[in-house]
């Protein structure tokens, strides 16, 4: 019923008018082509989010939107700090599921000398996918608290990497106001054995090649050039973050009651004690994820050193995909601090924002959008248009179109492996099922997703990266 009510505002922009108690309209960023895969249930979730107190301007669905729990994946919503709410559903269970891109001084020929398979096996052995307790480390609860406070900066202090790594990470790899006492002992118990692990599901590590440059000047500023080998790391806050989300879903339900239209939209006022505690616990989980990727980065470098003694693998940028942040935006032409929730969305700030690291500040924030397994990934640059249209956000990936159950019925892992090999892509995975469920055909067309981002102007194309080897958790 929402699909029928969609009103076209302009090319690629659609509106859900205010119906059924919505406080603001919905805004959907879809091309005609993507519209074929637009789910009614995802639109309903956009409309439900629009009913939450204190929501500002629009409830937003980006190009890669699909059904989530409470909020859709590929959704953005911003809230007034005084009147608004915070919902764990607006962030997701995998708090700070995020992407880091490394640029190397290697070319495909260098990789060829060692052999892609050899390199892939070596990295697969080095980086624990770590379901259950998989960490190579043994840290104390006191050290875990330091991880939760200091994130990637903790890892660098411990010798995992360099200062430049966290400088090129959102919030310098350390979200402020993270108080470990707001994280339950259960969450800490789940996380302590998982620091420095990739995790399974859609998480991955990929060796790629820069295939095409769309914007020479920006690519140069990001240190990217054609033919260069890049490495992409996708992981989150593991069991610790999942438990933080579950804990606060329960606590908020108890304190403020369950919303009758969707229990997953349970929330608390931003100014309430519980709301503040959730934001603090969320920051702790985000910092766990930052530290996680920092350690994996270090291990990748160590591993590659065995093959290439002069290896360089610098962080281009590290972007959050599941997070809530206090940011300043123009509301009714006045600058105002608001709370922006991005669930399966990437921050896409234009030049000049103080949140962007100094060396990129005159250019805009690097936006990293991974494709699905075996398809291209893209680097974009944030824009001023995004700040106007989407609270400074764009898509975070391809977005699912086919369910895991149906993928398992219809797709064979062997066939995918062979097809990928034909394209020159090797794969190592924790399970065959993992390959099938993340097969390229269950995702939307990433090329179309980024094309629309570029056309609307909420993230401009800089470079295309193609995979040459993939490790799935």
């Amino acid at each position, binding site marked *: 019923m929402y699909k029928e009510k969609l009103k076209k505002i302009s090319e690629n922009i659609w509106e859900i008018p205010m119906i059924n108690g919505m406080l603001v309209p919905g805004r959907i960023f879809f091309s005609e082509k993507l519209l074929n895969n637009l*789910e009614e249930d995802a639109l309903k979730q956009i409309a439900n989010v629009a009913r939450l107190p204190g929501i500002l301007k629009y409830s937003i669905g980006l190009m890669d939107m*699909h*059904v*989530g*729990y*409470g909020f859709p*994946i590929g959704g953005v919503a911003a809230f007034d700090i005084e009147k608004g709410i915070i919902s764990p559903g607006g962030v997701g*269970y*995998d708090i700070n599921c995020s992407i880091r891109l490394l640029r190397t001084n290697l070319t495909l020929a260098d990789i060829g000398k060692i052999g892609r398979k050899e390199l892939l096996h070596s990295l697969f052995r080095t980086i624990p996918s770590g*379901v*259950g*307790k998989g960490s190579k480390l043994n840290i104390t609860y006191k050290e875990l608290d330091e991880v939760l406070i200091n994130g990637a900066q903790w890892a660098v202090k411990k010798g995992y990497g360099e200062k430049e790594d966290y400088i090129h990470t959102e919030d310098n790899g350390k979200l402020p106001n993270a108080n470990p006492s707001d994280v339950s002992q*259960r969450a800490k*118990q*789940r*996380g*302590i*054995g*998982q620091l420095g692990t990739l*995790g*399974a*599901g859609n998480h991955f590590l990929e060796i790629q090649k820069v295939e095409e440059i769309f914007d020479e000047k920006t690519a140069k500023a990001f240190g990217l050039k054609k033919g260069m080998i890049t490495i992409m790391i996708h992981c989150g806050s*593991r*069991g610790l973050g*999942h*438990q933080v*989300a*579950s804990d606060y*879903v*329960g606590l908020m*339900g*108890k304190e403020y009651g*369950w919303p009758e239209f*969707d*229990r*997953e939209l*349970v929330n608390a006022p931003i100014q309430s004690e519980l709301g503040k505690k959730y934001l603090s616990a969320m920051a702790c989980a985000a910092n766990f994820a930052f530290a996680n990727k920092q350690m994996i980065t270090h291990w990748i470098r160590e591993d590659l050193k065995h093959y290439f003694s002069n290896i360089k693998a610098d962080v281009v940028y590290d972007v959050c995909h599941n997070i809530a942040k206090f940011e300043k935006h123009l509301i009714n032409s006045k600058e105002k601090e608001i709370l922006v929730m991005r669930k399966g969305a990437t921050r896409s700030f234009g030049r000049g924002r103080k949140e962007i690291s100094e060396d990129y500040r005159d250019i805009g924030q690097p936006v990293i959008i991974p494709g699905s397994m075996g398809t291209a990934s893209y680097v974009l640059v944030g824009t001023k248009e995004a700040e106007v249209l989407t609270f400074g956000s764009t898509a975070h990936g391809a977005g*699912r*179109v*086919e*369910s*895991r*159950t*149906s993928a398992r019925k219809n797709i064979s892992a062997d066939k995918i492996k062979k097809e990928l090999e034909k394209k020159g892509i090797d794969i190592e995975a*924790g*399970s065959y*099922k*993992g390959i099938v469920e993340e097969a390229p055909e269950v995702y939307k067309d990433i090329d179309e997703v980024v094309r629309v981002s570029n056309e609307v102007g909420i993230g401009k194309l800089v470079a295309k990266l193609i995979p040459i080897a993939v490790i799935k*958790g």
Partner: protein
Amino acid sequence: MRKYKFLEHTADIKFQAFGNSLEEAFISSFDALKEIIVEKNRIKSVKKIKLKVKGNDLKELLYNFLEEVLFLLDAKDFIASEIKNIKIDVKKNLFEADVLGDRVSNYKISNDVKAITYNDMSIKEEKGKFIVQVVVDV
């Protein structure tokens, strides 16, 4: 009677679990979760953990019970094989059972379930049969 079945869901995994009593339906939902985590692999019952779970309503009780399975997996190196001596007090929303299982490291885990969710969750009774529906985040 089939104990559980998987339903279509775009991003996550959705299942329905059945039983002739609420207790049986809860056990079936555990069996479905177990299949998601380790597929059809058999888990040995070499250790026993006594589980007590509380909730503010029945949905929360189901959520907290299934979440406990994830907690044991991540935090206690314990993969559950079966549920015995289950007792559910519907009035007080209390759940008690013995959970049998083994060390995680002895098995291949094929799915890292991130969380149990309330998305589309339902607990229904129809003509003496109980049906629970759950979506898990993977």
